[in-house]
């Protein structure tokens, strides 16, 4: 990717918006860790991902470790957008980069399979942007995730 032109922040946000339509979230029964008396579920229920209170939702990135894949994908765009806009200013990357690069192959594959091609491309674009603009351990984690996603997707294409 030497000398490749990097998309701008605005372009990557537009890519996220195009890939993840703003539809009302249905979170009844979603697993969120079970220690908040259902506060996260109640907060997101019926809202679109664009309508969520960013401050609250970003402070609760821990839910990404508990949600099943369907619910994870439903709120993923909020957290992807934060990776682009906020970088390391919030705790989101600490969790999201682990979730997007789970060592458990089955769970990783399940997430990739649940996303459509446009959503997968958006995830890779976000990870690439984060890896380029940030530094240190989190940027290294993003680079490792990009490599894994790229390898997984090219392997799929070749099959």
């Amino acid at each position: 990717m030497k000398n490749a032109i990097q998309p701008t922040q605005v372009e990557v946000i537009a890519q996220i918006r195009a890939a993840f339509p703003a539809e009302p979230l249905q979170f009844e029964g979603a697993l969120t860790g079970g220690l908040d008396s259902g506060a996260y579920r109640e907060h997101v229920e019926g809202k679109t991902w664009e309508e969520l209170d960013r401050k609250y939702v970003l402070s609760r990135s821990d839910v990404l470790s508990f949600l099943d894949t369907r619910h994870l994908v439903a709120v993923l765009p909020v957290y992807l957008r934060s990776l682009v806009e906020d970088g390391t200013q919030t705790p989101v990357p600490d969790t999201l980069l682990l979730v997007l690069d789970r060592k458990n192959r089955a769970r990783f594959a399940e997430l990739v399979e649940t996303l459509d091609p446009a959503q997968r491309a958006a995830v890779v674009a976000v990870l690439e942007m984060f890896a380029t603009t940030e530094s240190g351990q989190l940027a290294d984690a993003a680079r490792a995730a990009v490599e894994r996603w790229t390898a997984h997707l090219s392997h799929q294409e070749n099959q």
Partner: protein
Amino acid sequence: MSSAKRIVAGLLALGAATVALGASTALADKLSDFKEADRYDEGCRTIPVTYSSERDGCDREGPNVHPWCDGDKGPVTCVSEEETRKAKRGVEDAKKNIDELKDKKTKAESNKSNAKTDDEKKKYSDEIAQLEKDIYEGGKKLDQAAKDLDGRKKLVDDAIYMLDKCIGYRRAVMNSFAAALDKVRNESEPQELKDVARSLRGKYEKAKSGHEEQITAKTNAWNNCKSWRP
């Protein structure tokens, strides 16, 4: 059989029946307890009260997780190493600026003492006066930079403290689920209890895995803070 023997035999039979009834009641209570726990999808209530130490541990430590992990009580991220570098650079640059101004002032004072004319003396006096003002302003900038560096140190120390607490509470909750998982794996009789136990086992595995991932996330953040401390 003598009447005494009949009485003894009767008492023994009654005792056995009482024990059997007690065991049956205990089993029914346990099954009911497990079924109650299985009504919940997640959280401490999925641990039956039969597992009292695991349930108590989860109930006691669980409410501390979000206040300490979500940033309500203080910072839970140190943002980036650049923030530390920037704060240190601010102090270094301010000190360097003052040193340069002081050198210029020394030079101007030397020039002034070697000056031949009143005009020259006035020129260097004015220069010295300006440099003294600049040094004073530079001192204020240094104070501000030092405050910024202290602020950075405080944020990093606060975040290390918060993350430490967060990880501790999260680990305590995870351990409750891990211990409950170990116990529930051994529940094999009767079949009805085994079925409920299997359902609970799936819930504990998910809970343990989720808490583990969160512990990793916060431990990574803690390690970053430690290495970025000014």
